[in-house]
């Protein structure tokens, strides 16, 4: 019997700190009257985790947990998502009368799950991360207990999420049966050997190697669910509409970015040698995702639903970077997720300010004449809408540009042409918001629920969207460095 050796805990330190803070937040809730303090505590936890991130690098637990540039970048996106969510939540959950401390604790746990996903070097760890993230988010989606829509959102999200988990487990089981390991690197080596054998024997084409193909399809299905890609996107509009708006914002960025983190890791590490095969799976998924997201968004009357479909569409664009399969492609997806976090969070922050006592403010018609009654909020929304469309000089353009560039470089020009056409179609529904705000007369006086924390979130996101739009170098270089250039 080998003696117990303490594993190196440094790479996993940020996660440990995050766990402690999440538990502290849960406990603090019992003693603190002012729940804003718990929110403040979670922002402090972000600072502590970022501090720990700087010192964490390497592989531990026998390669099950990898802290590298790739995971670091995604973790920063998650932490950004966490911070912005907390900032826009503080006032909002009071308005919704669900001002409980465990709200923040659950957000911390969910973010912890995402961080584990980004660092997973083993399918079991990956599954742990996904479940931790998902279970916390299910609860958050149904956090407004007295609201049936919120309940419905949680229920749908949970049921379909459970299916996705089953798919994932099935995929893991298949690949374990095929290779005898759940370690991503070892799977990669095995698959490579398998492909090598099939080439020499020439009788087995990888496509006829059904367990491998089936396992990849299972993985693609499970991850597609997380990033809300077609045909596993059905849950998104209902869940996004029913969930508390701050959680909708949280869900539209965090789990999606985490989904892309594992897609990148699993497909490029474990299935790197069968790129042609999984491209063939992901290309139709990407096209359908862009099509369904953009076309369905055209006819929405609820802004949260519209942004749900928009987020489906954005997953489609980002998939192009994965399909490109190059280091540049991965870096472009990472960059896109960061930019998407800023612009989508900004848009949701504006949506949240419209929610007031006795006024839901989530219909697109509520935006009529906003430029007249609240010019600043309207101008910010205008910036975010143009950024989501991808019009320069906003960050959205730079994000799309990088993704498209890496896809063209990888030889997928035709796919990029499809993407830009859908991108042009998307202009219609984003501009509709601008049109309502600027070109219609206000019907009723909309009262904004402003708070310092929301103003801060809006300032951060708007400045980031414009700065990245004009000077993207630093961010793109960071993404490239993180992707391992």
């Amino acid at each position, binding site marked *: 019997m080998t003696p117990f050796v303490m594993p190196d805990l440094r790479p996993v330190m940020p996660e440990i700190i995050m766990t402690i803070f999440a538990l502290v937040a849960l406990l603090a809730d019992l003693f603190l009257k002012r729940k804003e303090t718990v929110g403040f505590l979670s922002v402090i936890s972000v600072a502590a985790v970022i501090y720990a991130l700087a010192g964490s690098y390497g592989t531990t637990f026998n390669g099950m947990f990898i802290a590298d540039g790739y995971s670091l970048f995604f973790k920063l996106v998650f932490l950004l998502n966490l911070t912005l969510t907390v900032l826009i939540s503080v006032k909002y959950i009071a308005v919704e009368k669900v001002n409980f401390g465990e709200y923040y604790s659950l957000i911390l746990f969910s973010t912890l799950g995402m961080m584990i996903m980004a660092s997973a070097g083993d399918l079991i760890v990956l599954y742990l991360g996904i479940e931790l993230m998902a279970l916390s988010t299910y609860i958050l989606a149904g956090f407004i207990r007295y609201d049936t829509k919120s309940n419905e959102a949680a229920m749908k999200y949970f049921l379909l999420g459970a299916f996705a988990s089953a798919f994932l487990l099935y995929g893991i089981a298949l690949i374990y049966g095929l290779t005898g390991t759940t370690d991503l690197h070892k799977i990669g080596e095995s698959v490579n050997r398998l492909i090598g054998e099939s080439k020499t024997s020439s009788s087995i084409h990888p496509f006829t190697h059904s367990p491998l193909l089936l396992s990849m399809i299972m993985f693609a299905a499970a991850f597609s669910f997380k990033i809300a890609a077609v045909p596993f996107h059905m849950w998104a509009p209902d869940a996004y509409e029913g969930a508390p708006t701050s959680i909708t914002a949280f869900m539209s960025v965090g789990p999606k970015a985490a989904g892309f983190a594992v897609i990148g890791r699993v497909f490029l590490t474990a299935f790197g040698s069968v790129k042609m095969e999984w491209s063939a799976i992901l290309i139709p998924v990407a096209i359908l995702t862009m099509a369904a997201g953009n076309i369905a968004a055209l006819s929405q009357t609820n802004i949260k639903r519209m942004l749900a479909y928009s987020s489906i569409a954005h997953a489609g664009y980002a998939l192009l970077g994965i399909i490109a399969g190059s280091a540049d492609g991965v870096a472009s997806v990472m960059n896109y997720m960061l930019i998407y976090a800023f612009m989508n969070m900004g848009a949701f922050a504006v949506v949240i300010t419209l929610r007031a006592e006795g006024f839901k403010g989530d219909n697109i018609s509520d935006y009529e004449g906003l*430029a*007249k009654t609240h*010019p600043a909020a309207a101008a910010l929304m205008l910036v975010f809408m*143009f950024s989501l469309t991808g*019009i*320069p*000089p906003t960050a959205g*353009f730079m994000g799309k*540009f990088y993704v*498209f*560039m890496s896809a*063209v*470089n990888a030889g997928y*020009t035709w796919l*990029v*042409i499809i993407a*830009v*056409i859908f*991108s*042009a179609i998307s*202009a*219609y529904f984003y*501009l509709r918001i*601008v*049109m309502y705000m*600027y*070109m219609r007369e206000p019907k009723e006086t909309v009262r904004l629920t402003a708070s310092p924390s929301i103003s801060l979130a809006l300032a951060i996101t708007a400045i980031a969207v414009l700065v990245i739009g004009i*000077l*993207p*170098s630093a961010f*793109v*270089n960071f993404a*490239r460095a993180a992707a391992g250039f």
Partner: protein
Amino acid sequence: MEQVIMNKSGFPILSALIFLPIAGALLLLLINRTKEALIKWLSLIVSIAAFILSIPLFTNFDKTTHLMQFTEKHKWIPLWNVNYSLGLDGISVLFVLLSTLITILCVLISWDSIKVKAKEFYISILIMEGAMIGVFCSLDFMLFYLFWEAMLIPMYLLIGVWGGPNRIYAAVKFFLYTLVGSVLMLVGIIVLYFHAGQTFNILELMAKAYPYKLQFWLFWAFFAAFAVKVPMFPVHTWLPDAHTEAPTAGSVILAAVLIKMGAYGFLRFSLPLFPEASKAMTPLMLTLSVIAIIYGAVICLAQTDLKRLIAYSSVSHMGFVTLGIFALNVQGMEGGILQMINHGIVTGALFLSVGMIYDRTHTRQIADYGGVASVMPVYAAAFMIFTLASIGLPATNGFIGEFLIILGGFAASQWAGVLAATGIIIGAGYMLWLYQRVFFMETNTKVAGLNDINAREMLALLPLALLIFWIGVYPNAFLGFMHESVRHLLERVNAGSASEINIAKNIMEILK
């Protein structure tokens, strides 16, 4: 780089021209919206300052070279080899001047007519000016595309917020048409970038030769963006709506500068980058141009709306411009460029004039007018000048441009020359008929008792009237700018094989 003349004075004049209006717009952002007078005066001062700043471009321009002048170059996104690179040559210099001049007039004409959201209006106008100048100065594709697209935002707002009754439809149509074209060009730009060894530098890209098949596809990708902007038949349908519904200032900017960018794009990018493909497509381009000329003119005859009529006349006039460009000879091309400037001046002036009378009567229906000459004699005289210039009467600028184009067109294809000339005849018909219906005949009760144009409005029209005669009498002052650049461009285009290419066969071969 040997293709570039360095900026002799050392002062970054082009950057100043781009960012002065944008800085002005940011300044307006800080001003309280209730201080409308301050907002108006400030935007007027900024636009005049930008114009004064642009005068050295006219006086100090070296006409003896085709090289880029007033250049600036800074690293911007080193990773993608994107530079902040600016410069002007004989093709682009006049458009910058046109942009700065037109902006002043747009501020003047909007003085009393824009009553709601004045702050946002002037911010949009100034941002628009910065972006327009940026488009004409950019020597880097990324920078060019940034300005090209960024321009859509203020224009969308100008049409949609301050426009006529059907403004929302017109604004969305304008935006979507232009965007679809632009994104296809973006894909073209990216493909070109990788093919040419990862550079967005326009001069470097021009120095390379590309295989015919690539040229063919890229020509169409760029065509999508430029043809929509010009607009060429059959993608012109956004223009009548946008021109008609936009506020006066918006129509003027659209007509005077924005739609020139399409033709400018052909000259700056399509022809030098894809010379063989351009040449192969010449018959098709000439055909589309002639269709636009005649179709636009005939449609004008049936219009009952003043602004719509002038909008369709733009389709016809821009047909002349593309005809001149794709004639691929010196006369045609110089005529085309000059006609762009002319059209900017004349149609800009016509839209300004229509805006002035619209402010008084709030109707655009031709039937609501009649006998205006007797109530507003000064206005009628000014309108007569613009009408005659639009028709192309000798001694006005329109004559020089159209004459050169038809000369060039005739050399390229006799049929094109002959058919284009019929466009001029119909043009005279619809413009004079319009003038007759509005200014002569019985005085309509709706126009009785109108005040003649005031000093501010006269000030807005005067520079354009002067330019009409200046170019008309002494065109060399303007043609001189472009001789060298046009000669150089044509050398590049005609360097390839001069053999006739069967276009239909050509397309079939590519598609195989």
